[in-house]
């Protein structure tokens, strides 16, 4: 049987031609064809084709493959050596330009390294717990109330016994004000926490000595540094110490110090007393639960039905709950009862973006400097290209340069960071470095540097690719246009960023000033706020008498002014129009309160200690408005849980009992004594009076150090985040402007160099000094102007968004935008003026003779 031979598939032969050495190709192809036809007649077409493919693939071996251009490696190496040499020489020869480049890079690098370190530090909070994905905190939502992470004591144990999915649960409470620990003569206030013993099975706090065994009753666990303070001889286990002079505790174990990036911070831990009765009204602790690792957390947490029935069984049908995962603890805004510090995700976002912007800005700056140098290197690059260098090879030069510059910039950046550390001690970078692992830092630095090098190499190389070599050699202006328009774009972009930053900074600053100078409705200067606890509160009358003896003490009052957290629903008041209810904030105050804090009365009177005030009430204007009263005095209102109506005796002018981020809400000032003691002092006597008051306090309460704060400081602290952000913003803004100016400087340098002949000819023909300045600077002014126009909408959007944080804010004004633009314009002109002046006043002959 002999079929007509069909031609073989083409692809294997094409493949062969592609990889095979041309010398051997024809013979091998012949052999393959011959074999193929023989096989075809023996076994048929298909089998022969399969064999053919197999054979061709087997031909792909070192002896037969054609390696591209054996002469290339040589060429490559010599180019590389040449580039290294040229880079080094350039660095030495053009000291000013190189310095500018390295400074610009270093500044940007320092900024974004600092920012990324800080961000990494913030994000590392609570990440060291191995069960971090299984642990949650319960947040209760009551119908009509704000959600609360402060939960009733029995919740933890009931949840754990009710749900098999919850394998462990613990209560956690934190002694915010500290407790007095005492051993012998050594006594200090320490921060402590109260937990159930399962706490230590849930979280990864390491035991150094002792164990959790029998952790109940009067046992105490100390951290290592606390233990060392009280028991310097290192033998703390089994020793006794007293807390608040009352109870004695036995040291059961010593923990390693709590890591700095832990939300839970404590010096000592004592156990909760076991629950004896189901008292669901005692809200004071956090409820922490750990789910079985087999359970999908989302599945359990969303199955609200079972939780719903659980709340029904304990007769709290109006309750529902949410679960906060452990990694979110640090960023949750309601955690102040439990954690001394908290993070702010918004701030992290703002800073990460700022970090990226600065990184990009400094890279853009670097790239525009490098591409500017192209013109001077055109001949060299053109020649290299003619001799067969690919554009990637030519761009190796930029890789080497970028690498060298980035390494030098890294050194500069570390110097900047050290300098920064000296002046801004609030942000402790070294401390950050300690909490992060070393390899994290290495990754951050490496990542930033590599992306910098990549960016700095790829853009110039891409620009190079577009220019044909002959055009490079001919020094044809037309073809250099693409690189110079890129550069122009970069400069405008840079200025856009810096103008936006400056305008934002101005708006930011204005808001901060506004906060600082805002009429708050109460006196915050020269008022001392002293915190009392259960032991010191009973001594208040004696203390008050002592204080009032001094002529510089104006008034003493007690009020829960700083603790306006809760709300209550008022459903019953005089003249109520429909079935509505309002939420008001309750606050207690004694009769001296309005005088002490100089709160103005709009109508009526404040409380009087000569009258019984059980049935009277003072409200603020917001409350009067909410209840629809024009004249509130004499009106009746019923408080929840009370039998009798109360009569309004006075209305105070609205005052900011909260920070300015929150609006003033309706406030009921109820007569009573609880909260802090407020002491107002005569102006200018602050320092001596604090000392006097502290002495008086010590006389009354010898066992407790006075815990106090000035109201002005408290107010400042309420907005501390914004002050801190403002400070950093300032640093960033200045850096952005400096980086942009560096690139301007390089640009004018370059323009002057290129236009030196033109300037010479114009001068010879009688152009004046100012003509030349105008010639050299008009472009830059145009750039800044364009950048200004672009930056207006961006800034407006971003800052408008930011100002939404505040309930009380300043308005934008056109002069902020104008002054932002002009600051940058003036800086730009001033930066370039020096070079322009030098060019304009140089002897024209020198420029013309230079052939």
């Amino acid at each position, binding site marked *: 049987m002999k079929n007509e031979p069909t031609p073989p598939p083409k692809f294997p032969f094409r493949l062969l031609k592609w990889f095979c050495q041309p010398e051997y190709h024809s013979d091998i192809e012949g052999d393959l064809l011959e074999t193929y036809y023989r096989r075809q007649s023996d076994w048929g077409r298909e089998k022969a084709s399969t064999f053919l493919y197999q054979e061709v693939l087997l031909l792909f*071996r070192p002896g037969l493959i054609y390696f591209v251009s054996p002469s290339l490696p040589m060429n490559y190496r010599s180019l590389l050596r040449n580039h290294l040499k040229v880079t080094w020489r350039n660095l030495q020869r053009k000291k000013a330009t190189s310095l500018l480049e390295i400074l610009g890079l270093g500044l940007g690098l320092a900024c974004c390294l600092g920012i990324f370190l800080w961000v990494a530090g913030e994000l590392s909070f609570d990440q060291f717990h191995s069960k971090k994905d299984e642990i949650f905190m319960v947040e209760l939502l009551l119908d009509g109330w704000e959600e609360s992470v402060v939960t009733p004591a029995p919740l933890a144990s009931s949840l754990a016994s009710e749900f098999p999915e919850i394998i462990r649960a613990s209560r956690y409470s934190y002694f915010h004000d500290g407790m007095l620990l005492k051993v012998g003569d050594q006594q200090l206030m320490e921060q402590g926490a109260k937990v159930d013993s399962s706490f230590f099975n849930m979280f990864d706090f390491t035991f150094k000595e002792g164990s959790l065994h029998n952790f109940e009753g009067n046992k105490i666990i100390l951290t290592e540094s606390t233990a060392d303070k009280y028991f310097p001889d290192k033998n703390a286990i089994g020793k006794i110490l007293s807390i608040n002079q009352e109870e004695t505790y036995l040291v059961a174990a010593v923990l390693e110090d709590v890591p700095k990036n832990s939300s839970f911070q404590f010096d000592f831990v004592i156990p909760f007393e076991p629950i004896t009765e189901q008292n669901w009204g005692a809200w004071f602790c956090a409820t922490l639960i750990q789910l079985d690792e087999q359970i999908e957390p989302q599945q359990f947490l969303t199955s609200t039905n079972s939780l719903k029935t659980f709340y029904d069984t304990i007769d709290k049908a109006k309750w529902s709950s949410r679960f906060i995962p452990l990694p979110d603890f640090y960023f949750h805004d309601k955690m102040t009862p439990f954690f001394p510090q908290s993070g702010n995700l918004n701030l992290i976002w703002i800073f990460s973006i700022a970090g990226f912007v600065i990184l990009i800005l400094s890279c853009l700056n670097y790239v525009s400097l490098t591409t500017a140098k192209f013109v001077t290197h055109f001949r060299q690059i053109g020649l290299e290209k003619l001799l067969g260098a690919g554009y990637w090879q030519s761009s190796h030069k930029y890789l080497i340069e970028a690498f060298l510059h980035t390494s030098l910039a890294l050194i500069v950046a570390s110097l900047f960071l050290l300098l920064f550390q000296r002046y801004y001690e609030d942000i402790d970078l070294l401390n950050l470095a300690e909490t992060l692992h070393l390899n994290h830092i290495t990754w951050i630095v490496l990542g930033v540097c590599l992306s910098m090098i990549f960016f700095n190499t790829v853009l110039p190389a891409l620009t190079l690719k577009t220019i044909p070599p002959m055009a490079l050699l001919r020094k044809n202006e037309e073809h250099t246009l693409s690189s110079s328009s890129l550069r122009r774009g970069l400069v405008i972009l840079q200025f856009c960023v810096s103008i936006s930053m400056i305008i934002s900074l101005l708006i930011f600053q204005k808001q901060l000033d506004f906060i600082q100078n805002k009429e708050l409705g109460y006196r915050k200067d020269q008022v001392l706020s002293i915190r009392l606890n259960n032991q010191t509160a009973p001594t208040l009358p004696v203390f008050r008498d002592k204080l009032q003896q001094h002529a510089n003490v104006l008034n003493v009052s007690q009020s829960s002014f700083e603790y306006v957290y809760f709300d209550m629903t008022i459903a019953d008041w005089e003249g109520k129009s429909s079935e509505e209810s309002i939420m008001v904030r309750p606050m207690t105050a004694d009769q001296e309160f309005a005088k002490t804090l100089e709160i103005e009365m709009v109508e009526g009177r404040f409380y009087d200690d000569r009258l019984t005030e059980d049935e009277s009430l003072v409200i603020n204007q917001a409350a009067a408005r909410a209840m629809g009263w024009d004249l509130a005095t004499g009106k009746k209102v019923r408080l929840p849980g009370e039998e009798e109506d109360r009569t309004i005796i006075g209305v105070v002018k609205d005052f900011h009992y909260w920070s300015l981020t929150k609006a003033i809400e309706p406030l009921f000032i109820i007569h009573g004594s609880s909260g802090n003691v407020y002491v107002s002092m005569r102006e200018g006597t602050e320092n001596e009076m604090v000392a006097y008051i502290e002495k008086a306090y010590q006389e009354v309460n010898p066992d407790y150090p006075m815990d106090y704060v000035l109201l002005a400081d408290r107010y400042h602290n309420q907005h501390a985040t914004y002050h801190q952000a403002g400070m950093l913003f300032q640093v960033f803004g200045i850096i952005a402007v400096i980086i942009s100016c560096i690139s301007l400087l390089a640009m004018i340098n370059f323009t002057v160099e290129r236009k030196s002949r033109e300037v010479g000819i114009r001068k010879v023909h009688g152009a004046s000094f100012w003509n030349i300045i105008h010639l050299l600077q008009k472009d830059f002014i145009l750039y800044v102007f364009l950048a200004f126009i672009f930056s207006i909408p961006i800034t407006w959007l971003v800052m408008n968004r930011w100002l939404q944080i505040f309930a009380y804010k300043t308005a934008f004004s056109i002069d902020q935008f104008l002054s932002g633009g002009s600051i940058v314009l003036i800086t730009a002109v001033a930066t370039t003026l020096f070079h322009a002046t030098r060019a304009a006043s140089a002897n024209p002959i020198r420029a013309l003779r230079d052939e």
Partner: protein
Amino acid sequence: MKQRYLGEFEEIVLLTVGILHGNAYGVSIREEIERRLDRSVSIGSLQVTLRRMEKKGYLTSAHGETNPLRGGRPKLYFEITPYGKQLLEYAKETRNNLWNALPQLVLNLK
């Protein structure tokens, strides 16, 4: 010059080229080896070996006639050089010497 030695496959290819005397080109060498030794040889390994031996000077090659079945590609005929022959003889001689030195006893074991 350093004494060179033949590899096992090299020796087989060289001998086959000798056997085919005057008709030794890629396909025929391959078929001859497959027929005589009953082992499959890929074009790739054969070509690499042929080229290598050519470079070392054991073989010479010359283009011959063509054939429509080869797609118009000429056959490349190989022939052993005197140096190649010398190497073959050397290989055979050393092999024989070794065989002769082998004690009868060892051969009887089996």
